[in-house]
């Protein structure tokens, strides 16, 4: 049974990943950013005395900013781990040999994706002790934390799939990397811009709460930052529902859209892996 789920590419990738210094320096960079942020935040709010009290509202604020920061870090790191998945094998001239083995295209692509996702999960777990500092001060429920981590995972898999897809269809890692960062800028930045744009258009003609703007809702609901805000505070979700007139949980839309992204990207990657072969078996 174990053999059935054994993915050679996944095992090999994990082995290589944990042997490279780059992985550890990446992890260190990630933890350092979070450490600096938390230390800075604590020092600022206690006015550099190291004493004084810490109100739950401030703790909550730290949690909110930390969540967004972590999301930004994850979005920043994922492409560097996945955009080279296939193209680096091509550049190192190891891909042809891999493709003559009896592994299916699906196995290879999934192995590549999951090895990167596994490393990102490790990163998130490594940051968890720092993250849970907020529990010291209260204001945040554990179920919120679980929900947030689940959505980190969904986002990581989606961005990872996009990275693997670009890595398969482009010849060079650098091109795949740029394309993947482009997708992130679209999902994180352009959607926010469109959100504000559609909102402005919507408000021009109507009083808030009188009509429905699906576009406003849509652009907000596929933005990772917006999703995190609604997960952190239900007020945010209510505000969006009021603004757009669509009263549907953002996380469900986000989940659906990102699952579609994952499925589409992986399908393209699997189809294009053996691009020089007409049949894809």
């Amino acid at each position, binding site marked *: 049974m174990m*053999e059935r789920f*054994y993915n*050679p*590419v996944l*095992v*090999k990738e994990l*082995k*290589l990943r944990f*042997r*490279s210094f780059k992985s550890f320096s990446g992890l260190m960079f990630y933890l350092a950013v979070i450490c600096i942020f938390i230390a800075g935040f604590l020092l600022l709010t206690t006015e550099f005395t190291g004493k004084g009290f810490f109100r739950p509202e401030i703790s909550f604020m730290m949690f909110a900013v930390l969540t967004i920061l972590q999301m930004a870090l994850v979005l920043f790191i994922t492409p560097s781990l996945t955009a080279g998945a296939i193209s680096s094998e091509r550049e*190192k*001239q*190891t891909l*042809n*040999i*891999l*493709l*003559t*083995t*009896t*592994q*299916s295209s699906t196995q290879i692509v999934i192995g590549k994706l999951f090895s990167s996702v596994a490393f990102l999960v490790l990163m998130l777990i490594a940051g968890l002790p720092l993250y849970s500092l907020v529990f010291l001060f209260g204001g945040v429920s554990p179920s919120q934390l679980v929900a947030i981590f689940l959505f980190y995972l969904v986002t990581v898999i989606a961005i990872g799939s996009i990275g693997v897809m670009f890595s398969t269809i482009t010849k060079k890692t650098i091109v795949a990397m740029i394309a993947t960062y482009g997708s992130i800028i679209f999902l994180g930045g352009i959607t926010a811009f469109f959100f504000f744009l559609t909102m402005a258009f919507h408000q021009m003609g109507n009083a808030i709460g009188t009509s429905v703007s699906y576009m406003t809702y849509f652009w907000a609901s596929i933005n990772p930052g917006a999703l995190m805000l609604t997960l952190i505070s239900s007020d945010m979700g209510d505000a969006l529902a009021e603004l757009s007139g669509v009263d549907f949980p953002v996380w469900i839309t986000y989940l659906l859209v990102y699952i579609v992204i994952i499925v589409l990207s992986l399908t393209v990657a699997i189809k294009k892996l*053996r691009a*020089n*072969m*007409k*049949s894809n*078996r």
Partner: protein
Amino acid sequence: MIEIRDLTKRYGSFTALDHLNLSLEEGIVFGFVGANGAGKSTTFSILATLLSPTSGDALINGKSVIKEPKEVRKQIGYMPDFFGVYDQLKVDEYLDFYGASYGIGATERKVLIPQLLELVNLTNKRFDYVDLLSRGMKQRLCLARALIHDPKVLILDEPASGLDPRARVEMRDILRNLKSMGKTILISSHILPELAEMCDEIGVIDNGKLIAHGNVATIQAQLQGEKRIVIKVAERLSEVRAFLEEDPLISSIDVMDNRLEIAFNYRGTDAQQVTLLKTAILADLPIYALSEEEKDLEDVFMAITKGADNQ
């Protein structure tokens, strides 16, 4: 074992392979000869299921590379002309990874790896990092990798390129060993004399067309038309020379005074050659040795490809 039918590959207007037909028996060593860009690597890539032909098909052990690529992959071990290795992977881990990629179980792999390393003389490098091996060792490791699922057919694209003479000899010994194990081996090379030594058959490809195919001797005979014969003479060189000049089948006579040797081109058949020799002996000419000068594959290759160019 291998059946190539009307295989054609076009890249835009460029035709890399032009209706290639080839049939190979099981257990032979086939040498594929051709200049760079003649279509050797394209043919091998198609056989290795990395490339779809524009038209035509190739069957390996009855399985089509187009319709059943996965079945074909089980039958073949492929070694590309250029290949890389993963940094930070040890030799046994490298083989273990590919073993697993072919669906070989973990316990089986543990038994298999030392055997393969033994076969390619890398036993003492088992725990070294792959990227620190020399080129010759990497080639041998890649060969071991190609053998891990015990394929019936080995497709080796330029396995000797870039190797020093010692590494080349080692590679040749390993291939001989594999031949004795009954593998069908397809090998392409620029080191033509080496191919002649170990190949049962050679095929010459030029501009995507197979222009000659057969065993080494047949191809040589087919191309040479006339052979170069060298005789050793004990004394009376000029007398022998005069005798040879009378034969209309003989041309380009070269007398090497210092070595008491005469070399000449002979157009006749083997039977005519017997008569020539008998006449010479009966004429009491002091000839004590006669040999045919071996033309190696390099000459054959040059002759064939030049001929094809002129057409």
